[in-house]
């Protein structure tokens, strides 16, 4: 590896670490999510449109069926995870639990994004065609 290669590598790593640090600062500025999720919401967006919003501190399962496919989102004990999906890659299920204010679960094939948002970001429950147990 030549000197310029090392410089490029170092610059890339430094930029990544700096961005990670800035994201942490951003996240802290928005306030930390308590362990039980009180005061925060789970927002599911499909194809760029809000599909529904639910409180993070209430356990439930949400089935999302779009023309792209089927996903089952679970809210439990102040965290969210994708329990099942019929997408070809299955990345969304393997992404596991999220519980911080900047985390997202993405199902790229289904154009689905699950995110944790401040309760101020949306109060109303507007989930259509939703299975909530």
């Amino acid at each position, binding site marked *: 590896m*030549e000197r*310029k290669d090392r410089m490029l590598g170092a610059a*890339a*790593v430094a930029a*990544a670490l700096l*961005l*990670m640090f800035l994201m942490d600062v951003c996240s802290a500025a928005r306030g930390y999510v308590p362990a039980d999720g009180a005061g925060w919401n789970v927002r599911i967006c499909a194809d760029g449109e809000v599909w529904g919003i639910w409180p993070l501190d209430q356990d439930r399962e949400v089935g999302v069926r779009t023309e792209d496919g089927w996903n089952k989102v679970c809210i439990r004990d102040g965290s969210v995870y994708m329990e099942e999906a019929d997408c070809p890659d299955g990345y969304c299920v393997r992404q596991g639990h999220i519980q911080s204010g900047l985390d997202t679960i993405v199902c790229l094939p289904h154009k689905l994004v699950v995110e944790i948002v401040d309760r101020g970001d949306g109060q109303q429950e507007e989930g259509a065609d939703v299975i909530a147990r």
Partner: protein
Amino acid sequence: MSLQDKTVRKVAYCAMLAAVAMIFSYVEVLIPIDLGIPGAKLGIANLVTVVGLYFLEPGEVLLIAAARIFLSGFMFGSGMSLVYSLAGGAASLAAMVLCKKIKGLSVIGVSMAGGIFHNAGQLVAAILVVKDLRLSFYGPVLLLFGTLTGVLIGIASKKVLLVVRVEGQKITENRWI
């Protein structure tokens, strides 16, 4: 060697490299490197693009990469995966062609730039597809990962380039890699 012979050789090289790239793509489908990050993969097939850049014209490398992406997209891909592969492949190739012109940047640095821009292209495509800017939060992780895979592919490419002979002559005899 006549012009016709040269053309035949070029076509043969391109077809051979495209075939090797297809096999690498298939290997990657068989053994997916799962990091839980959408779109992150090792990109073993990119090795062919990196190696090709050092003894073919950029246009020929573009042809090989395009053939590989379309063929493997139709054969092993699903849904939108072709779009991500195209975005990643185009960004990566453009970055590598430009970086190769920088004096003092070896094949490892060129491949590093390719890895970084491959992930950047895929991320931008993903943001456009799901229409959610929040995906940019995957940027730093993908940047780190792209750098790492770029270095690995670069080291492998260097090993290949050191032994490969084109028309009986070692590539490294008349150019710096």
